[in-house]
């Protein structure tokens, strides 16, 4: 059963993901996402940037979702309208987004990243990791050895892969 598979069987190296210090700007992070994922067509991996402090401790994760959500706060409130196909409110939104985006891009990534608070140990079961990720809506879960050393990361895709292959056997 999937309970037998542990986190360390499916986790990926932290170097599969770009790293930035928290003082990098959102614009710099956006460029990094472009060169690290979009240009190399690495769409299959979870597109996220790891945010570290000056002592190389992981403090947050930045996903495309974080960037888009913060780019224009109106984006979220207007989501309902989008479903109603309200072309007009959509067009005002895109104008607002472009006008305000320059200053936004100068702000540090620490303002919009999702702080990492929840971790999992390498020997925990995959089922437990899956529970934590689903419950907290986490795209990526950091794996910590002895509660302090970052050993890797599991993505929803890694969890799915592990659990599905077990179930399909």
């Amino acid at each position: 059963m999937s309970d037998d598979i542990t986190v360390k069987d499916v986790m990926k190296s932290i170097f599969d993901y770009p790293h930035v210090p928290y003082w990098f700007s959102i614009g710099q992070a956006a460029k990094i996402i472009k060169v690290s994922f979009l240009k190399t067509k690495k769409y299959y991996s979870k597109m996220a940037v790891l945010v570290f402090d000056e002592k190389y401790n992981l403090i947050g994760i930045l996903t495309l979702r974080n960037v888009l959500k913060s780019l224009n706060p109106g984006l979220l409130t207007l989501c309902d309208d989008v479903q109603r196909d309200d072309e007009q409110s959509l067009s005002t939104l895109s104008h607002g987004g472009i006008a305000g985006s320059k200053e936004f891009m100068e702000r540090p990534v620490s303002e919009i990243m999702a702080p990492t608070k929840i971790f999992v140990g390498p020997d925990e079961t995959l089922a437990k990791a899956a529970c934590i990720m689903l419950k907290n809506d986490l795209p990526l879960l950091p794996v910590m050895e002895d509660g302090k050393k970052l050993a890797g990361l599991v993505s929803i895709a890694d969890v799915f892969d592990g659990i599905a292959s077990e179930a399909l056997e």
Partner: protein
Amino acid sequence: MILIDRGSHQKLYRQLLEIIKGKIESGEWSVGSQIPTEEELCKTYDVSKATVRSAILELVRQGYLMRQQGKGTFINKSTVSEGIAMQTSLKELMFEDEFSFKTKVIAHTVMMPIDDLDIRLDISPDKHVIYIKRLYLIEDEAILVQETYIPYHVCPLLLEDNIEDNSLFDIVEKKYGIKITKAKNYIDITFLNLNESVLLGLNEGATALLLQQYFYSGDTQIMYTRSVKRIDRINFHMEFERRFA
């Protein structure tokens, strides 16, 4: 007019660099004059902006060109003197042997090469880079802020090392056995940014000495260092030895 040879094994930016260098050395482009814009060069030689940028940056590094913010790129008045090979102790240029210094580690982390760091380190922009920022103190007075960038794959274990009060140079050479065989040094004047001014206890925008160093092991570039030093504590001593062939 010499054009880019796409059949050649030489990288495009290398070829463009040689073409521009030729124009400067032959005097076709005169000293002090402005060179064509990036867009014009792209068009003339049918190459990408990245290629033009790499060629220009390397020529700035080599001292042939000089960039002026908001104005453009110009032929440098003092082009590098060729012919005399000079040697100096690499360590002397690290400022590390001159006095008994202490260092305070401000940052010891990992980043991606932003801005033109990928070109400066000669790596692809999706490669991780170890970033070290240290403050040098002599008798408790902050004199130098040094930022060091090392491609992660060159020395991954450096992330775990204690780098306080240790020479990075010694760690890389003695502990990891990476022999530094060449260093290119560029000395310039700069103005302190906010963070540097706070660290050095000076006003933002104060004049400071900028030393940029590119370190190589054989043909591989292994490190780029940017040091900013306060100018009231400069004591520059270099010995050059002329090598006769």
